[in-house]
């Protein structure tokens, strides 16, 4: 009976998509309340009301932006599926396969979002908080759609994965990532840390410490970082500092949402003709005259200083 119900649910999810995010919202709110109470007792600076307000309003704005463009993304995925070269059947093991594939696509997207300034401009707001708590998880982009970030996630439709499956696994992936944004959880059991993305791994990802810059891009499975050599473990002797290399120093929503796009515009306007495109597609921090630092340059300088010591 239960198996039949599950099969029916899976079939309907594959057809029309099952977005579990709205169902998860009450749990998000409850978890934030619990974490705030924990912070009040153990670590009051883990939260800052102004920062929390900005993060949560970014989340609200992101939901609105997502709802407005959802139809267009669904159309794009539907078009790809209509022109598919194969058909992936809806079976329990293909659901698992699609979930793993989607998580790999998330890794690719996320790595690109840190290494190509065009995508970074949309993603940077998620990193711009100097705090790391569950409200930071909801500090989401308003400009993911114009940045075309969705292209990383919908291409499997062309190879026969039903758009509903992609929407469903993408939503599960997003909900999983909520809980890793906390300082309240230390380390999980070793087997779990080996395979899954955890608070410890993701703290490293949000760090500005030179050792940790541009590491641990995983969404659900940390194995991608281990496979592609972008993994760095959290160390007790190097406590994580959160935020971005040049901290914003403001809680202004407009600045958080659009500052990097504005900076790209300024840089491209001022740059010589041959260098303009570089400010769009090269790594964040790149300049044609070497006047700023990329994360690789910061890490290299830090490593040099470590060797001198």
């Amino acid at each position, binding site marked *: 009976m239960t198996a039949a119900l599950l099969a029916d649910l899976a079939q309907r999810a594959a057809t029309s998509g099952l977005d579990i995010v709205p169902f998860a919202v009450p749990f998000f709110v409850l978890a934030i309340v619990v974490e705030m109470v924990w912070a*009040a007792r153990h670590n009051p600076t*883990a939260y800052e009301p102004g*920062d*929390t*307000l900005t993060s*949560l309003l970014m989340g609200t704005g992101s939901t609105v932006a997502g709802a*407005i463009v959802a139809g267009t993304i669904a159309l794009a995925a539907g078009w790809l599926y209509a022109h598919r070269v194969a058909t992936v059947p809806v079976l329990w093991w293909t659901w698992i396969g699609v979930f793993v594939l989607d998580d790999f696509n998330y890794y690719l997207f996320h790595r690109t979002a840190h290494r190509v300034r065009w995508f970074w401009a949309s993603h940077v707001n998620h990193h711009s908080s100097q705090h790391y708590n569950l*409200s930071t998880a909801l500090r989401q982009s308003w400009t993911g759609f114009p940045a075309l970030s969705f292209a990383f996630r919908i291409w499997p439709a062309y190879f026969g994965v039903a758009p509903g499956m992609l929407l469903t696994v993408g939503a599960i992936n997003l909900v999983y990532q909520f809980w890793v944004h906390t300082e309240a959880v230390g380390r999980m059991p070793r087997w779990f840390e080996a395979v899954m993305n955890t608070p410890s791994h993701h703290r490293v990802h949000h760090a500005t410490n030179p050792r940790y810059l541009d590491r641990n891009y995983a969404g659900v499975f940390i194995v991608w970082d281990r496979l592609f050599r972008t993994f760095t473990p959290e160390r007790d002797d190097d406590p994580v500092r959160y935020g971005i290399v040049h901290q*914003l120093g*403001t809680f202004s929503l407009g600045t958080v949402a659009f500052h990097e796009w504005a900076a790209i515009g300024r840089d491209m306007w001022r740059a010589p003709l041959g260098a303009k495109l570089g400010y769009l597609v090269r790594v964040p921090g790149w300049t044609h005259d070497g006047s700023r630092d990329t994360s690789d340059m910061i890490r290299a300088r830090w490593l040099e200083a470590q060797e001198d010591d």
Partner: protein
Amino acid sequence: MSGKLVEAVTALIARPDIGPALIIGAQTLFSILLVIALWLLARALRLGGDVRIADAAHAAQLADAAITGFDAHEITLDRARIGALARNSEGRILLIRRHGARFVASELTSHAGIRLDRHTLTLETGDRQFGALTLDLGAEAQIWAASLRRLGVQGIPA
């Protein structure tokens, strides 16, 4: 009042001809109310607190966090310890200020916008987001003001 509100929302949801714009609008309104409730809770729990720069060593850590390898060797704290000025051996100067429950820093590259008023020094780094900052540096204010003049204007040495 709340009963009427529930009735209105229920009637709205029950309408078969309800448009997606109305649904998004209602969801957004509800989200904003939740956000405000969480923000008020954070304030009620006094989260964030009143952070200060503990001492010169703390300021040096903040400087190194802002610019890797900054290695500050001359530091003056604001009397209320909400900000600091730090200089390294290369003569680079970093202005540190409180931002919520954390600190941010910006490099001073020009003496434009610097004003001395007895023991206080008002500084601008040219970074609009960072803004202007007034530090009470005591007797050190005049010494810093004199040395900052050597920065020149917009990187042109005086």
